[in-house]
């Protein structure tokens, strides 16, 4: 019998053929979606695709690029944004 807590759709299941020629299900965590730029919806570089609990084990500098808006905007969109800010100065 499967453990009670594993009988949800939030758990990722995988069928594995064992060396004794049996079919076994392996249970694991689901991966979150890849981080995307909130402007252009591109995939972000430098943001690892892991659960938040595992993310905390990384040092802060390897969780996202070290620039303003790093981890939320892509590099090209930050350039556009900063350029807009500067052009508004008087």
């Amino acid at each position, binding site marked *: 019998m499967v453990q009670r807590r594993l009988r949800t759709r939030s758990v990722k299941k995988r069928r594995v053929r064992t060396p004794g020629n049996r079919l076994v299900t392996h249970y694991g965590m689901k991966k979150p979606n890849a981080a995307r730029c909130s402007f252009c919806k591109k995939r972000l570089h430098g943001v690892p695709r892991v659960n938040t609990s595992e993310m905390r084990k990384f040092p802060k500098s390897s969780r996202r690029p*070290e*620039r303003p808006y790093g981890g939320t905007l892509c*590099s090209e969109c930050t*350039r556009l944004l*900063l350029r807009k800010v*500067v052009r508004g*100065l008087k």
Partner: protein
Amino acid sequence: MALEIGRVCMKVAGREAGKYCVVLKKVDDTFVLVTGPKELTGIKRRRCNIEHLEPTPYLVKIEAEASEKDVIDAYDKIGLTKKFELRLPSPEILKEAEKKVVKVPVKVEVPKEEKKVEKEVKKEEKVVKKEEVKEVKPEEKPKEKKGITLKIKLPSFRKGKKEEKVEKKEVKKEKKNLERKNKR
């Protein structure tokens, strides 16, 4: 707005993005010498691509390759420190910074042509006369020394990085081999 000497810019790319800096000198068609200064805004004295800069309407009165103190004073005269909400660094920090900073800019700007001339001069030394060499040396020597230190110290050039990677790989291989031998 052009990127003339004294133009205040914002860096748009990289980890220094969103910070202000001042143009000190034109190095190349694509590159420009720039400082924050580091004690004021956080951008250190370095070469910077023009595409990574966005010029602001402000101009600061400085000479080419001005020292960090002069730049900070020039900032303060116009009242930019208040506008950008920057905190002025203490004089002790500035003194320490000046010692470090003086070496950096000169390293960057040594053009390639001078190095070729040096090599030719050295060849002439062996063959022809010593008198000519003496005339040439005192003019060029100070630039030479700084240029040479550049090559070794700055790892940011692409060639240097590749070499480092190769070296690291070799070191790893040696370590693995040693471990295997020890096991046997």
